């Protein structure tokens, strides 16, 4: 935190992510579908690791309810 290229950018992001995760839960969308991590551009392996980990957790959750709702609306 605080090492952001945009100075206070990641503080601003962190607050918004905290809020949005809560709101998503209230909207009926798994809050774990939203993730933020701080990774420097010099930390390639770390980045790859996070993305793979995120993909695994998304796969475990299955397709987004939004996707299905969208399809149902179009079909109706």
């Amino acid at each position, binding site marked *: *935190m*605080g090492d952001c290229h945009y*100075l*206070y950018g990641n*503080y*601003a992001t*962190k*607050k*918004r992510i*905290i*809020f*949005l995760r*809560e*709101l998503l*839960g*209230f*909207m*009926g*969308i*798994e809050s774990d579908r939203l993730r933020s991590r701080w990774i420097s551009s010099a930390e390639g392996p770390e980045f790859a690791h996070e993305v793979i980990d995120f993909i695994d957790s998304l796969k475990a959750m299955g397709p987004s*309810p*939004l996707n299905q*709702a*969208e399809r149902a*609306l179009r079909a109706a």
Partner: protein
Amino acid sequence: MSENVRSKVKELLGSGEIKGFLGLSNKYGHVGPHLFCDENDLDHLVVGDWKQPGDTRYTLNKQLIHIASKYPEEVFGVLVRGCDERGLKSLFTWNQLKEDKLVTVGVACPPMLANYCECRTPFPDEFVEGEKTEGVEGLSVAIVDNLDLAGRFDYWTDVFSRCIKCYGCRDVCPMCFCKECALEDNDLVGTGNIPPEIPVFHVTRAIHMVGRCIDCGLCNEACPADIPLRTMYKKVADIIDDQFQYRPGYTKGKSPLNMLGVGTEV
């Protein structure tokens, strides 16, 4: 029940303390906003009780922003309920109105209205009309919270699919004072479809209401599709209060989302 308000306004206008009073008038059976400038022409001044208490509330603060910007040197009076006063406090924080250029004339809401609104403080700090009613802790948020994840999703998808994208919620909102609106930006929120993208349209608005929404509920009342917007915005305020100990209209100072970095780490 507007006699006390009327005499207070008459006094303020008569003494020259205020240039005009922004309140509600009942003319030809319609209640609407009106800027009263003549102390002898207050017969049609009302507090917004038409068929039921407070059923003709209006976004007076929003009109006031326009009036005050045209006459920055003048002092104006305005009719306030608890919600309107919270709105003013928030608008002062956002530099949209100046506290020293305003005089409020308060009305306390009756229990019926307080219950309907699930209002935490159905009265302003000072009021000349009505009696103080205890704040109400609402159930509407808890009802949705108690559904399971899929239940909540179905609930919001169902209500949002009724949206006709009239922008009524935004237009009536006293806290929506931006010159440019993200909801009209095709790159941010897909435009041209009805209903608007679910839930992006409403969630975008919700995020912009963080640290602003003072729970007046006018969006909910303006909505022709009867979307329970107030429930969503009550939750927005609850989240910010839980996570950042800030509640617009109650907590002094800027919203945590409007402060930069250091000292605000969470």
